[in-house]
């Protein structure tokens, strides 16, 4: 009984952490989406100076642990004279990381659109960018929505890694409550539930958007 009541009494404290987790995820997703869209297109470019750096970016950020990336941004960059506070450092690291994954999703999305669409757009007089902007990307977006939703959910959970640089998101707040109350199991269980509520909500929202787009 005490196990449940300890979660309930500390719920406001934990929910503040959950709010931080959501903000962290939101801003990281925003950076990730912008970066990922451009790098994903870059991966398909025939121009080498665009294609090669895009590929290196994706391979490097996908091929190294997020935990290491967060540590590099927070502890490593000051060596180069760039000082970031914990919260912005976490957003930058998470954003850069998800940019790599989203780039791959975007690339797959663009490739899922039949080549004829692009060729038709170009033959109608659209430039490369216009063809991308008005013909290819809107259709690609519809196709990749489930994969994007998956990435958002992953990012929500991965944001708990920001606790290693002292960002007081949900996980870190949970640790504080544990050392105050010593109720290790029930607090971890409570945190898991809160994460689940957040990811399930995201998953429902993505599903809703998917349905709306399927009609359109």
């Amino acid at each position, binding site marked *: 009984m005490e196990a449940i009541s300890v979660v309930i009494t500390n719920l406001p*404290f934990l929910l*503040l952490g959950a709010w931080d987790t959501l903000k962290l995820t939101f801003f990281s997703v925003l950076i990730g989406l912008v970066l990922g869209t451009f790098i994903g297109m870059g991966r398909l470019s025939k121009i080498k100076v665009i294609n090669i750096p895009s590929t290196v970016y994706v391979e490097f950020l996908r091929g190294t642990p997020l935990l290491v990336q967060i*540590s590099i941004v*927070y*502890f*490593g960059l*000051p*060596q*180069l*004279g760039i*000082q970031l506070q*914990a919260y912005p450092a976490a957003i930058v690291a998470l954003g850069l990381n998800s940019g790599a994954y989203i780039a791959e999703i975007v690339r797959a999305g663009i490739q899922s659109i039949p080549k004829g669409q692009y060729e038709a757009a170009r033959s109608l007089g659209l430039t490369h960018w216009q063809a991308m902007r008005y013909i290819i990307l809107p259709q690609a977006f519809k196709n990749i929505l489930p994969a994007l939703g998956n990435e958002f959910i992953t990012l929500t959970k991965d944001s708990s890694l920001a*606790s*290693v*640089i*002292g960002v*007081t998101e949900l996980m*870190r707040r949970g*640790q*504080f*409550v*544990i*050392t*105050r109350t*010593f109720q*290790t*199991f029930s607090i971890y269980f409570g945190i898991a539930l809160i994460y689940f509520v957040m990811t399930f909500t995201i998953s429902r929202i993505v599903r809703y958007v998917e349905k709306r787009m399927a009609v359109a």
Partner: protein
Amino acid sequence: MKKWVALFVVILIIGTIFSGTLAEIKARGKLIIGTEPTFPPFEYVSENNEIVGFDIDIAQRIADELGVKLEIQNLPFDSLIPALMSDKIDLIVAGMTITEKRAKVIDFSIPYFNANQAIVVRGDEDFKPVKLDDLKGKKVAVQLGTTGDLVVSDIKEIKVTRFQKFTDAFLELENKRVDAVVLDEAVANAYVKTFPKFIISAVIDTGEKYGIGVKKGNKELLDFVNSVLSNMFKSPYDLLVEKWFEETK
């Protein structure tokens, strides 16, 4: 290859320029300390979401003496030294034991607390170790990077499991996946008080002590911290002795 080494050296030199000198701390009007507030009663987060504890009061004292505000940066224990080295914080006040290895990368103040280690076991079992050697052939859980970790890691026959939080080490003990937990006495006392099913079977005097971490080479700040600490150690009696016997020398 040489180019990379050169670049690395340059980066290191640039890094050392931005250190928190005494003048800098005064100019910015706040002393930034780093701590891991999951270590009661030395530092933990209170119900009012404030970081409190023995160490925090010491840090507050240092800030007061400097005439600046105290800012507390919460970080996991093993991130504290990197944070100090990369100038995220001015001081580490986190119940950190002075060790040879750590002293190679950071400077330590004079000792301010005895880091005696407690061996905690399940109370309802016969296994009651009284010395570290009794743990040979057993499984022991510790908090990563703490003194407990260091002392049991020195004995090869002990199978050590390391956790980020000492509370996770206790969960391991409760789940019977380890036979004992070794951690700082003061922290063990607080835990065992809440959970009498665990008992402290022995307290080991490691001869090791806590110190405040200062960035290597920042002698000005180190001297200041040392003077604040040694003043705190003085009893009113000591002060009288100093006033009437030492100053008249």
